[in-house]
């Protein structure tokens, strides 16, 4: 090998010094940039708030006559003969499209039972001679606190499912030797005048990560 001349070796040393010095400055500069967070990396994700307690409420949607009796609450709504005359059962009125005209006194009742609301004859369920009770088409008279057999007289398969525990809400114990199961009545979920379950607000869905983060930390020059 040829010996390197003094001049060449000095040049080599200078070049090495420049390159190494440059690298040192570069790394130092990068560490400063990183430390000051000049490209604005995002901060921690926002805390996910616990769900609103109303979505954890498991009480039934509606209260039945039996519930009101149990809770010793005001039953004046069921006192039909406070207004009606015992000897004169109310007459039903319909419009030209055979839709029931709900009298003003009962304006809170929204009719919507059956497809095209066709089950709109009050006395299909209410007992014409005695408004304080309900009646099945076979003539049985039922109290307001015992409506499943009445509903079941038309909705046979559903009634059968309900009796077996397959329709409607249950709670408590699946193991009947350890405790009782709680059962609900038809009107705890369905409004008898419009039984279809109305649409409602769903509980919040899963929070997607990294979609709506907070504003980035101070800096952000290089974004």
């Amino acid at each position, binding site marked *: 090998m040829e010996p390197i001349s003094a001049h060449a070796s000095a040049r080599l040393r200078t070049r090495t010094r420049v390159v190494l010095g440059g690298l040192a400055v570069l790394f130092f500069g990068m560490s400063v940039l990183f430390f000051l967070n000049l490209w604005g990396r995002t901060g921690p*994700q926002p*805390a*996910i708030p*616990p*769900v609103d307690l109303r*979505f*954890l409420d*498991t009480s039934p*949607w509606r209260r039945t006559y039996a519930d009101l009796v149990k809770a010793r609450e005001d039953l004046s709504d069921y006192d039909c003969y406070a207004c009606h005359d015992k000897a004169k059962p109310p007459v039903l009125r319909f419009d030209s499209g055979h839709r029931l005209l709900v009298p003003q006194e009962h304006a809170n009742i929204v009719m919507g039972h059956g497809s095209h609301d066709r089950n709109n004859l009050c006395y299909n369920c209410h007992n014409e001679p005695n408004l304080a009770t309900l009646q099945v088409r076979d003539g049985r008279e039922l109290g307001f606190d015992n409506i499943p057999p009445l509903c079941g007289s038309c909705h046979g398969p559903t009634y059968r*499912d309900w009796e*077996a*525990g*397959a*329709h*409607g*809400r*249950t*709670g*408590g*114990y*699946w*193991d009947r*030797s*350890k*405790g009782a*199961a709680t059962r*609900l009545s038809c009107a705890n*979920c369905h409004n008898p005048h419009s039984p279809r*379950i109305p*649409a*409602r*607000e*769903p*509980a*919040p*869905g*899963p*929070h*997607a*990560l990294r979609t709506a983060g907070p504003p980035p930390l101070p800096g952000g020059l290089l974004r």
Partner: protein
Amino acid sequence: MNASPSNSSDKTSDAAMSRRSFLRGAAAFGGLTALAASLAPLLKLHEFTSTEEFLQKYYKEMTPDDMARVLRRITAEVEREYGVRPHVRDLKPMDGVEFIYALNLTRCIGCRKCVHACVAENNPSLNPEIQYIRVLKMPHGSMDVEKGDHTYADKEVPEKGFFYMPVQCQQCKNPPCVKVCPVNATWQEKDGITVIDYDWCIGCRYCEAACPYWARRFNFTKPEIPKDRLNPDMAYLGNRPRKQGVMEKCHFCIQRTRVGRYPACLEACPVGARKFGNILDPESEVSYILREKRVFIQLKEEMGTSPRFFYYFDK
């Protein structure tokens, strides 16, 4: 001691402060610092595991005394962490019981109450969020879960033209997740529930990859549960608080169902779409449903997992 050796050592040290020895010293110092820094997390080891937990036996090999000790440890840990004294038990499967879940897709309205009842019952992390139940909003006419959307944010449900299908652990009779676990930290119990021992899990996430139902969840960080949302009624294989780095999933609310109660998601369902019970009892609701109803779907039946979770339609 005379002066000359110290003089000479001064001299040598002066001479030794060459570039080479400086670099060597700096490298050694840097190396030691790096080593110390890399070992520093060990100082926080006590936050992650205790000696007692580290030396704990495998669940199936524990004697009742061992278990009592473990339950005492968990009680103390939960009390220290959350300030709530929990009631932790080790509940064994009951004889003559095999659990089945049936879900009526005709009734489900997609209100997600089951999701949050489950969260309130089972103490999963709220931040980051872990939920066992995923409610899929699916277009009518298809059972293809790929078409489902679980992030729907509609103002009102149900929406016309869609049905809603909640998916959670299907408690398979032939569970792929159990087969892949390298340490047997998850297994199927005789009542059909596939359980996880959170103290035995090493967090490899093989089970998560093996599950075709996307049912297993991993604790990427230390779970966060607000104190006022902690459910103190706990079971060892059930809803006791988990730690970072372990898997969890739906366990049919072991802490409730193994004492005879219904699962939390069922009790919360406002339309009664969820049915649960003992399939070995011919009088149970689920026996009635499997006998009387017509259309059943075991999700991804073709995988051969044989789920204990049945979807059905009313009409």
